[in-house]
Structures are given as structure tokens and as C-alpha cells.
């Protein structure tokens, strides 16, 4: 009983999110006229409170709830990142500025968003295979519902159908892998699995470990949208309401990477010298490297020919998952830090790009790049903002996207000569990506519109949030030492007694 009480105190962010979810459901069920506004306020307040608590708890490192979850600096970093992602989505994307959400019920949307956030937090702090699988499925199931949010819309329905079938299969395969891992090690607790594997592996078990790793990766690959588990991604991103797409492209991806590093660092790979230097039970580097290279290449090459902006950003997000994987491939302390920095940068640049796409859809009702010419003259502000977000995604200094790329490439290169080829592939990919991001900009600025359209009238709130995200791509460089320090001090996993 005492253990449960201490655990609850250390798990306050998740409890706050749970409470907020239930309150929003209740308020929505009352059917009063002010329920939509109240739901929004409750959501924002709950997220803010949870964010503050998760930052305050950053120095604690312990197992909670009988080892089912952990609180540690790494977990706190990801909690803060995930809650901030939800907060930005609620604030920047509203039922007013998203044309697709017009006329849909609001209370359920906020309740679902809070529930996904809660599941993301659970996933980032899971310390047991059962908890890991449960949290992963919670994230997935709540996301399926969010994708299907536009009732009666064929694209939304089709996207959610593809999402749920693909998700059910990949998480099913993952579950089979988890069951074999339990059989191999006799335990479901991640630290205990690590201890078991660190003691050494019989040669005849090597095949089993490879099979287990591949099966389990199908679940992680699905959550992070890495090749070859990316097939759902373009269709789902295109069919889902844009605020949901924006949210899915950052939050569950970050949660997927959070559990991936926790699983690899705290579970599967045995440390050699320090806690973050991994020799591994098997040759992880090459397996992960192939996945990373494939993700970048497939994502970037497919993005070249897209004309639907949501689809283009979907392929771009697959490619970015490939770059983020570079941090995992490095299997070092700097690699993990690079991954965290990249995810922070990705949050502001990708949400920004999706916000501009949503606002253009609000005014012109189109996601098609072929309708973008002339935007520069109609709204210079929006065009400049989009330019900054795309340049940041490209990795041009002095924007945060550049810092993300700098960190991942540095982490890979410092691992030695055998990684140079891999880094070169990454660099070539960044060049390909620059081409299609630049194509969007060229269309907006230089192409001539077929017909004159009325000038843009941007609502004050929308302009404010575009500006905030815009500054989010530039200003962090002024306090870079602090951000770097925060990521560095978060590099501490709870690793068992």
C-alpha cells in the first residue's frame, strides 16, 4: 500500500492526464451548451499541469508500481516532449481553423487526445513487457479512433481501416516476439532481461534472438513509421483530419523512439564499458543501419513525385524517422542525445509545416501543391513561415533542424571509419530531400497562378501560433547550451538495483 502511494506521487503527470480525460468525458456527457469551451480549457489546463509536474520530477530515478514502470530523467524528458506536443496541437489547431473538423463533436476529440497523451507517457516509461505491449496498443487504438474522426468521410474511414489492420498485424507479430523473449529469459521485466542477456548467450540461441528482435521491431517500426513497416503512413496521413495527422507525425513517433531506446538500452543490448556503450548480444548495428538507410531513401525518393502536401509530408516523416534512427544506430550516449535533440527540433518544424498546410486548406480548400502558386503575393507572412519550416526540415543553419542533423551525423561519424559510408548515404539523402522541399517553396513564390484569388485574411490567433512556431525554429539557438545540457542530463536510465 505504501509502495502504491509513493508510486502515485511519482506518477503524477499520468494521473493528472487520467483525471483530465475522465473530466472531459463527463463534461461532454452533460450536454450543456458551454461543454466545448470547457473541454478545451480542461484539456489545456490538464496538459499544462502535467507538463509542469513531469519537469519537476526530472531528478527522481526509481521503479514504481512493482517494477511495471520507471521514473527516470530519460522518462521525464520524453514525458515533457510528448505532453508539449499535445499541448501545441491543442493550442495551434482548433475546430475553427481546421476545415475538416468543422461540425464534428469536440469533447470526444479532447478526451481522445488526452488519452493518447496518457498512453504515450505510459509507453515512454514502461519497464515491463506487459506494460510495454499494453501502452503500445493503447497508443495505437486511440490513434485509430482519432484517424476515423471525420464521420461519413470516405478518406478518413479508409485511412483508419488501413491503419487498424496494418497496426493489428504488426503489433500481433511483435507480441509473438515478446512471448518468445519471455520464454528465452523467463521474465517480463526489462532490467531482469538485460541481466539475463548480459550473462552471455549460448550460440544456439543466436537465431532466436534475431527472430525475436525482428518480430519486436515490427511493432516499433509501425509506431515510428520506419521502412518496411511504413505502408500505412502515407494513406493515414492523407486521410486523417490534418490536426490529427500533425499530432500523429510527432507524438506517437517520439513515444516509439522513446521505448525503442529504452528497450534496446535497458533491455536487449548489454553494456560493455559504460551504461551507454553497448556491445550488444548480437550485431545490432547492421540490422538497425539497414532499416535506417531504407527509411531515408524510400521516404525521400517517394516524396519527390507527390503533389498532395499531406502525402508529401508523410513521406518526409518516413525519411526523418530514418535520420532519427541514426541516433539509435550509433548506440552511444551521444547517439541517444542526438535522437532527443532531433525529436525536439522535429516537433516545432513539422507542426509548423502542418499548421501552414491547414491554414491554406481553411482558405482555399485544397491540399494540392498545384493550387499553391501565387501564395507569396497573397500572404507573404505565411509563405515566409512555410519557408522557415521547410528550410528547417531540410537542415539549413541557423535553424533547429540543422542542429538536429548536426547532432545525429556527429554521433554516427565519431563511431569510427566503418560508419563513414553510412553517414555519406545520409548526406546524399538530405540533398534529395532539399530538392522536394525547395520545389514546394518555388511553387509558392515563383510560379504564376492561373487565376487571381482574393488575398488571405489570417485570423489573429492563427497568425500568433504560426509566429510562435516560427520563433520556435530560431530562438532555441540562443539558449542552445541549456537545451543541450537538459538533453545531456536526461541521459540517465533507471537500470535496476
Amino acid at each position, binding site marked *: 500500500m505504501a509502495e502504491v502511494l509513493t508510486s502515485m506521487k511519482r506518477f503524477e503527470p499520468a494521473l493528472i492526464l487520467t483525471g483530465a480525460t475522465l473530466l472531459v468525458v463527463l463534461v461532454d456527457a452533460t450536454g450543456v451548451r458551454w461543454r466545448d469551451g470547457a473541454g478545451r480549457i480542461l484539456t489545456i489546463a490538464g496538459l499544462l499541469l502535467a507538463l509542469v509536474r513531469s519537469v519537476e520530477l526530472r531528478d527522481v530515478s526509481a521503479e514504481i508500481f512493482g517494477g511495471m514502470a520507471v521514473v527516470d530523467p530519460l522518462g521525464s524528458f520524453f514525458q515533457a516532449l510528448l505532453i508539449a506536443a499535445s499541448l501545441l496541437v491543442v493550442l495551434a489547431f482548433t475546430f475553427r481553423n481546421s476545415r475538416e473538423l468543422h461540425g464534428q463533436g469536440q469533447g470526444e476529440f479532447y478526451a481522445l487526445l488526452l488519452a493518447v497523451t496518457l498512453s504515450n507517457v505510459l509507453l515512454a516509461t514502461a519497464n515491463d513487457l506487459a506494460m510495454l505491449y499494453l501502452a503500445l496498443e493503447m497508443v495505437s487504438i486511440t490513434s485509430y479512433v482519432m484517424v476515423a474522426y471525420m464521420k461519413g468521410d470516405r478518406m478518413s474511414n479508409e485511412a483508419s481501416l488501413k491503419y487498424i489492420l496494418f497496426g493489428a498485424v504488426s503489433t500481433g507479430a511483435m507480441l509473438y516476439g515478446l512471448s518468445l523473449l519471455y*520464454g528465452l529469459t523467463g521474465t517480463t521485466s526489462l532490467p531482469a532481461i538485460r541481466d539475463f542477456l548480459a550473462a552471455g548467450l549460448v550460440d544456439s540461441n543466436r537465431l532466436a534472438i534475431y527472430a525475436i528482435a525482428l518480430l519486436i521491431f515490427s511493432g516499433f517500426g509501425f509506431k515510428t513509421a520506419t521502412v518496411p513497416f511504413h505502408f500505412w503512413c502515407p494513406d493515414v496521413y492523407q486521410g486523417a483530419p490534418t490536426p490529427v495527422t500533425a499530432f500523429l507525425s510527432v507524438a506517437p513517433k517520439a513515444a516509439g523512439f522513446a521505448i525503442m531506446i529504452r528497450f534496446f538500452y535497458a533491455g536487449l543490448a548489454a553494456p560493455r564499458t559504460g551504461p551507454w556503450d553497448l556491445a550488444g548480444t548480437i550485431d545490432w548495428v547492421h540490422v538497425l543501419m539497414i532499416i535506417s538507410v531504407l527509411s531515408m531513401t524510400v521516404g525521400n525518393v517517394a516524396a519527390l513525385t507527390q503533389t498532395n502536401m499531406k502525402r508529401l509530408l508523410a513521406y518526409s516523416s518516413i525519411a526523418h524517422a530514418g535520420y532519427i534512427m541514426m541516433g539509435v544506430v550509433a548506440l552511444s550516449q551521444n547517439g541517444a542525445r542526438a535522437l532527443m535533440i532531433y525529436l525536439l527540433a522535429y516537433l516545432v518544424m513539422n507542426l509548423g509545416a502542418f499548421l501552414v498546410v491547414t491554414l491554406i486548406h481553411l482558405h482555399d480548400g485544397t491540399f494540392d501543391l498545384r493550387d499553391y502558386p501565387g501564395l507569396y503575393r497573397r500572404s507573404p507572412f505565411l509563405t515566409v513561415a512555410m519557408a522557415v519550416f521547410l528550410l528547417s526540415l531540410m537542415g539549413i543553419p541557423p535553424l533547429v533542424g540543422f542542429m538536429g542533423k548536426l547532432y545525429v551525423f556527429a554521433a554516427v561519424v565519431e563511431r569510427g571509419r566503418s560508419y563513414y559510408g553510412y553517414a555519406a548515404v545520409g548526406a546524399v539523402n538530405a540533398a534529395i530531400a532539399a530538392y522536394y522541399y525547395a520545389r514546394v517553396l518555388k511553387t509558392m513564390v515563383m510560379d504564376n497562378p492561373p487565376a487571381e484569388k482574393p488575398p488571405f485574411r489570417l485570423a489573429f490567433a492563427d497568425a500568433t501560433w504560426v509566429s510562435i512556431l516560427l520563433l520556435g525554429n530560431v530562438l532555441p539557438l540562443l539558449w542552445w547550451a541549456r537545451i543541450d545540457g537538459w538533453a545531456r542530463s536526461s541521459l540517465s536510465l533507471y537500470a535496476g538495483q
Partner: protein
Amino acid sequence: MITLQHYLIVSAALFSLGMLGILTRRNAVNVLMGVELVLNSANLNLVAFSRFGSGNLQGQLFAVFVIVIAAAEVAVALAIVLTLYRLRRTSNLDAADILRG
């Protein structure tokens, strides 16, 4: 004498049959049935390992959660399939073909 391997072979057969159903069926409900076979095979593994291996209950409890999650997933999936049927009058996956590129 029935050993762990006997159960693992049954579970392997269930897993492969489930995957076969997923890969070859064109009806969404049928694909879901394949997924259920895969989940059952994993559960069988968990329980068998719990019985013959370490002897702790972790595997069995994991399996209980899997069953609960499967129920939630099927509920949402069928809601989506019903909507597909309402929009297209079919639950065949070939009808889901607007999103391409």
C-alpha cells in the same frame, strides 16, 4: 510425455495459419480473424513458458492483458468496418482504394 516443444509447435502452426489468413484474405473481418489467431498463438506461448520455464505467473498475467486488448481492438476495428460498409456497401478491402499515390 508432453513437453514445452509440443506446445510451441501448436503455437507456431497457429501463428503461421494466422499470417496466411492475413496475407491472402480480402475481407476485413477475415483479416481480423487471422489477427486473432496470431494473438492466440502468442498467448499459448506465454502460458506454456510460464508452465514449463520459470514457473512465475508473469506469462499468464501478460496473456490476460492481451485478451483485454484484443477485445478493445476488435470493437474499434468492427466499428470502422461497419462504417466502410455503410459508405461502400462492402467489407472487402479492395473497396478501400481512394488513397493512392
